[in-house]
């Protein structure tokens, strides 16, 4: 494997590991805030015990989120040095603001959350808990503003003197519609994750006949918060689809395995087997109109197919070659205003021209054949996207159903009545993580071959370090993270099994 593949593998592995812990932190922090609010309002000790017990599990998970997050902040520099140079002027800012506004908040108040029960008043401690929750959610906002810019790079332009992208409109970067949609979708997914975590563990206690009061109260909170969040994930997941339709047409065409443009409104393919060689999808089962409505919010706009998008890419690439050629002249004659005007005319497609670098270093001499190859390389991995998306959405609908039932039983005070429901809740435990990791794959693997869509191909973003170095660090991270994950899961299951009684040393009559 070359350095590009190794670097991508390392980024994917470390991001996927990191994302095992972050969604649970997002969801549990809010659930802790809700439970502690109930404690402060009712004054009932059991609610404080709920906060402390779920807090222990939160803490173990939080530590893993912090540990794996350190790598993410520095990996752009270690492994994606050219990317860091090329877009750091834009991309670095939200990362720095994330540290200033969000990480300090969550990391400072997490200390008070655990250590200051006896040093703060009830209200003060409640504020600390909510500030912790606010911090975790703000960090999701800023990292998704950064990620949203990679998906839809607004508010920036290429500067020939510095050979990089530079900010022209910071407000456009902040209020990027893709970032907004991603933020709501991602935090909602985190809330679902936290709610399933609480629901499933509580259901297990009810099945075992332990900690009944504890478990029922936990389930009531998880059911209502989980239902709202599960609806939000799907509804606002649709919002992600809509914006992808505007600026990441290729991603949505690949998710649909839609090789040819269909007459509007396009149908949604429920099932099919994408055939990569023949550019067609076999055994399709289609639902008419749905895709067109989701992706364009209209019944008359066309959703372009993969083959048409590849044709369009050829035009962009040819224009990108002109941009690259002119850029070389501008750099040789920096004072020539006419050359700069000419560059401005083509520079929007410079990123497409750079796609050719994978096929020949001297891209200014690219042939029609090279351009065709580069255009074909804009097709992401169709079967992986097609199936990841369908499993993610299927799991999302299952969450809505499960939480709706849980909500109904909790309203009727029958949470411990049906063992089949409790078993369903327990067995749902791993599904949020499956859906979330699949969501990452759809969003980021589906962004390929781009690091920043239309601006910088992933393959060019890597550092100039040696492949053996990256192989070494990749293996190191995998072994290291796996060992930590084993310790993490061991501790979590130990405290879950012990239950609140022993974990937080309750008085004997507490439950």
């Amino acid at each position, binding site marked *: 494997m070359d350095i590009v593949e190794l670097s991508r593998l390392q980024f994917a592995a470390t991001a996927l590991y990191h994302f095992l812990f972050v969604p649970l932190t997002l969801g549990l922090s809010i659930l802790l805030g809700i439970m502690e609010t109930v404690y402060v309002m009712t004054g009932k000790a059991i609610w404080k015990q709920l906060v402390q017990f779920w807090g222990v599990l939160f803490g173990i998970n939080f530590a893993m989120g912090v540990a794996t997050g350190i790598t993410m902040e520095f990996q752009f*520099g270690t492994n994606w040095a050219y990317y860091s140079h090329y877009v750091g002027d834009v991309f670095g800012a939200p990362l720095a603001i994330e540290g200033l506004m969000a990480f300090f908040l969550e990391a400072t108040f997490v200390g008070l959350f655990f250590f200051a029960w006896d040093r703060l008043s009830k209200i003060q401690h409640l504020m600390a808990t909510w500030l912790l929750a606010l911090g975790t959610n703000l960090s999701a906002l800023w990292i998704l503003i950064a990620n949203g810019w990679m998906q839809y790079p607004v508010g920036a332009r290429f500067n020939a003197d510095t050979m990089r992208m530079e900010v022209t409109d910071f407000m456009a970067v902040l209020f990027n519609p893709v970032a907004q949609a991603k933020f709501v979708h991602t935090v909602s997914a985190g809330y679902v994750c936290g709610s399933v975590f609480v629901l499933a563990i509580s259901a297990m206690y009810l099945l075992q006949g332990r900690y009944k009061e504890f478990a029922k109260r936990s389930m009531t909170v998880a059911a209502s918060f989980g239902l709202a969040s599960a609806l939000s994930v799907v509804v606002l997941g649709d919002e992600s689809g809509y914006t992808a339709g505007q600026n990441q047409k290729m991603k949505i065409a690949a998710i649909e395995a839609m090789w040819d443009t269909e007459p509007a409104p396009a149908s949604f393919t429920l099932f099919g087997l994408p055939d990569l060689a023949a550019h067609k999808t076999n055994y399709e089962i289609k639902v008419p109109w749905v895709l067109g409505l989701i992706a364009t919010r209209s019944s008359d706009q066309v959703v372009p197919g993969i083959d048409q998008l590849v044709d369009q890419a050829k035009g962009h690439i040819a224009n990108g070659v002109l941009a690259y050629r002119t850029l070389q002249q501008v750099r040789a004659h920096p004072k020539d205003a006419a050359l700069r005007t000419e560059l401005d005319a083509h520079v929007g497609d410079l990123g497409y021209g750079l796609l050719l670098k994978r096929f020949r270093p001297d891209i200014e001499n690219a042939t029609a054949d090279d351009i065709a190859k580069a255009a074909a390389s804009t097709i992401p991995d169709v079967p992986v996207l097609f199936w990841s998306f369908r499993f993610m959405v299927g799991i999302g609908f299952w969450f809505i159903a499960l939480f709706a039932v849980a909500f109904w039983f909790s309203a009727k005070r029958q949470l411990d009545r049906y063992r089949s429901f409790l078993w369903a809740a327990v067995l749902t435990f791993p599904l949020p993580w499956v859906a979330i990791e699949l969501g990452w794959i759809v969003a980021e693997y589906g962004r390929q071959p781009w690091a920043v869509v239309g601006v910088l191909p992933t393959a060019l973003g890597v550092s100039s370090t040696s492949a053996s170095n990256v192989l070494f660090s990749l293996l190191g991270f995998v072994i290291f993270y796996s060992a930590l994950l084993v310790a993490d899961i061991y501790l979590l299951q130990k405290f879950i099994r012990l239950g609140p009684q022993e974990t937080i040393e309750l008085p004997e009559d507490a439950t």
Partner: protein
Amino acid sequence: MSEYEILRLIWWALLGILLIGFAVMDGFDLGTAALLPFVGRTDTERRIVINTVGPVWEGNQVWFILGGGAIFAAWPMLYAASFSGFYLAMILVLATLILRPAGFKFRSKLENTRWRTFWDWALFAGGIVPATVFGVAFGNLFEGVPFGFDGDMRMHSTISLLGLLNPFALLCGLVSLSMIVFHGASWLNYKASGMVKMRASAAMLYAGIAFVVLFTLAGMWLGQIDGYQIVGAMAHDGPSNPLLKTVTRVPHGWFANVSAHPALLLTLFAAYGGVVLAVLLRRFPGYAMLCSALVPAGTIATAGAALFPFLMPSSSEPGASLTVWDASSSSLTLAIMLGCVVLMLPVVIAYTTIVYRVMRGPVKASDVEDSHSAY
């Protein structure tokens, strides 16, 4: 001075302030971890050591994360060149830092002795490795590292891990380690109790002496290293392209700034004075702690003042060295980020102060033995 030049100067100062923030705030808990196996002999003593930083280390570590983010935003070429150039060293730092959150959180969750001993040494590694490697990295900046850029501004370099581990850089690594251990000992002298506090007080003396000797040696050695100097006039508000200047090496070059501006010696006095005062004031641990914070502050300021305007000199292609004048973000990004720092950093400092006030007072054996939430 143009606006762009002023912004670059401010961001150079902010880079120093953030590094000092990291070394002062995260420094004492790295130093605490480095001392853990030595000042804590029994399990309860070790838990006292860990719980002195338990409620605050996570917030402190954000200074490191913020440092990375701010360098990315304000000095993207420095971020790219340093972290990819020092690849294996940085991976080593990351690996040991990753052990810390797990070490703090997981260690006391099980009663098993081998489990606890393992995490004690993991925390120890998480303390000494970053403290030493950052010093080694600074040492290499003074010597210059072999890198350059092609026409697309893609970096090429022949930096190797063994090349980084040269005698002068290793000496700088020891300076950094002794500085962090000194500051950590001062923290334990302030925050711990019983035998741990007494051992920490003794450790302050040894680490203080080591720092003074090593820092002096490094300073004398620095005089033997050729410094870097920009040849001729260079626009201070030009585009961030490090290939437009000429740089030469001059004997005693790193002392040029302090020769021109003797007031810079104050940074040196701060480092030495911080050690002396902190050691003398050990019986007044709060004041000693404030004085020991001067040590990392003075040391980093001394190094930064000597290097200015260089950020990362290149030994193989000196003209490609990264400087304050040609490695920054655009003026718009620098201005926006300055606004963010001015608005948000005071708020951060305010609530951090509140947290330290809430958690004030020494950590005693009874605090860790009677609590289910203590680490």
